[in-house]
């Protein structure tokens, strides 16, 4: 299989994933308040124990903020602290090495 074909297939897979997310995003619960959260508010978040884990493979997706900064792409979770860019310092993968 050529590299280009593989890339096309992955692109399609991502599109499918997003399409399924659109369905759930459109129909799901009440809006969550938005906007930048300051460092002071971080204290509150940290009390809640463990940082959310990353439930997907990272292959080719080194920069988490491409999707998670605004959370506007397919309804992926939006980070409350976009000022921190070394995401995997706190968020471990659930399936990193398998």
């Amino acid at each position, binding site marked *: 299989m050529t590299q280009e074909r593989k890339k096309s297939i992955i692109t399609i897979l991502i599109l499918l994933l997003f399409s399924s997310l659109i369905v759930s995003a459109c129909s799901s619960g009440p809006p969550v308040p938005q906007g930048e959260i300051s460092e002071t508010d971080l204290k509150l978040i940290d009390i809640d124990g463990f940082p959310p884990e990353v439930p997907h493979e990272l292959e080719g997706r080194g920069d988490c903020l491409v999707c998670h900064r605004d959370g506007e792409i397919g309804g992926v979770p939006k980070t409350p602290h976009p000022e921190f860019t070394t995401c995997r310092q706190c968020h471990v993968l659930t*399936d990193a090495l398998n």
Partner: protein
Amino acid sequence: MKFSRRDFIKACAVSTALVSAGCSSGRQPVQSKPIDPTKTEADKWVKSVCRYCGTGCGVMIGVKNGKVVAVKGDPDNPVNKGLLCAKGYYLPQIMTAKDRITKPLIKKDGKFVEASWDEAMELITQRFKESLDQYGPASVGFYGSGQTSVDETYVANKLWKGCFGSNNVEGNPRLCMASAVAGYMTTFGADEPMGTYDDFEHCDVFFIIGSNTAEAHPVLFSRIVDHKRKNPGTKIIIADPRRHRSHEIADSAIPFIAGTDLAILGAMAYVIIEEGFTDEEFIKNHVCFSDGANPITWEDYKQHIKESYTPEFASAKSSIPVQEIRKLARDFAEPGKNTMTLWCMGINQRVAGVFANNMIHNLHLITGKICKPGSTTFSLTGQPSACGSVREVGGLSHLLPGHRLVANAAHREQIAKIWGTDPAKMAPAPGWHTMELFRRTVTGDLKCLWVMCTNPAHSLPNATFYHPGLEQTFLVVSETYHPTLTSKYADVVLPAALWCEKEGVYGNTERRTQHMAKAIEPPGEARPDVDALIDFAHRMGYGEVFPYKSFEDVWNEYLKCTTGTDMELASYAALKEAHGIRWPVKDHIGTEGTGMRFVAPDDPYVKEGVDFYARPNHRAQVFARPYTEPAEMPDKEYPFCLTTGRVLEHWHTDTMTGKCPAIMKAVPTSFAEFNSKDATQLGIKEGDIVRLVSRRGTVELPVKIERPGIPRRGLIFATWFEAERLVNAVTTDAVDAASKEPEFKICAVRVEKV
């Protein structure tokens, strides 16, 4: 095939268009996790320090019903400013693990049986007394750790060196920091970095060599990332044979052949001299030169560099093109810029570790990029209190508290006076260094060994060679979890209180001494190590000089050992209040203590300007060091170089991180990481199991290909945290001649398919 970030963004762009079309209104982004303050609402929050690396992040521990329910970064601690890494957040899970040991165990007929503290302590006392009577002081040893609290090593050191007359007191910092100690000692006359983390925010050029800062010191890395984000002109240069997570912010990379870094460092000096980047004024006022045995001149040193380290020579050795070496030197030495070098185990765990340390200091001294905010040489430490509890307390076979030496009669007198012990009882010669200490378990010369808060059967290089020694020695292991590879060989296992189950003090990489309050009670009959040691001292007949009733009592005595030295520490009361205080501490210094050492007005011992007062001539020494290769480079029979290291999620022998389900899900096993071209040539693929074979032993590991990092061709990277896949069966126990630190980072292996 690679699906690059660009490909992904392209895919995302298409997806976004579809999202807009398919879901035009009403959709709101989802927060990553809803906040539910009631979930872990704590009864109280206790100020402490993270249990893991040498960064020394301040934490607040949330306690509810006598249990640790949450850990968050302390926003008021200037080290981490509220940040933590994953390991820190998961700390509550290490406290309640199922394999916590809660009663003493005694091995009877090859099996561990539960015993009372009294029975266990009586057995230990009897065996140590017999050994001292029959075989003398050298037959009893202590092996501690950079994870003990200051008081624990202090008490053990006093009992062994002051009372038993045995200098066979060692600790695992010998395996990680000894070369840095020897580097600072030889060049500056005093151990530990002169800079602080504050320098990060003033630095223009970071030269990172032999350190995967992003994974080994994640919070420090975040500080660097943040600084670069705010100051985009900041240059980050990473010299490493493996491309790793830290490279995500690198402006340039120097992927030299593993083991040839001395050639790079020497050639940088060559270019700096040839192209006129030297700071003649600084050299004239503050620097002297040595060939390692005798003083030499600046001209002699230049001649040495000219003869030994041409860029062409370095290029041939390292595979880095001459032009890139020249550019590296120019970036490092750029006039008007502040430059910091950060290094860690890639430099220290080497048979030329001290030389490499000296050669890093050399570069800063000849360019004058030192003793200025943002310009310094900064060795990163791996354990939370390797500096505080071992280097400063003197928990190595040649040291006494307060940076003193056992070989110095005046130092022995001073310490014996504070200890209330007989100076004549103290041995004038250094004891056995770590690798020698464990070798003596194999030869049978060491009869009794107390291992505290570390796991040498797992963490020693060439580990399996030493296992029979541990088996035959009378071995006391005070540990938190059981079994570990080490406690398996124990005759007595003592249940130790963990982290916030006791009061303590840790000293981090930047000379910051931090108090840790007790937050909860230890489980079952577990006790703080210091209690067991004081109990032992009393049973051995030295109760009179161990009258301590509290942590504060021990601290106050230790404080006397530091008074008037270059590492004078803060009072107990001051430490309890502060978020750490950096030594040397004098009354007129503010609560954070000394910033830049050797520089006025920060350092209270310096009147004006810069003064390397720890050296007799008040000058730092630049050393002419010869090019030295590792003890074992790849050859026909063993064609690959193996290097070991960390992932962010795990720490040391995973006795703690292995208790955290999320971490185990993220990184379940150790692995061997290959360059894809090597993998193709070997006919191995991702997920295969390979056997790595060295001259000493073998280990079987699952294969990863170019992830999470990319080793250069010929290099295999392996993690070593897992007991079942004992990578240290393969590593070499060759040591640096001066620091006695083993060369974990480089050995030759061949690869067999399983």
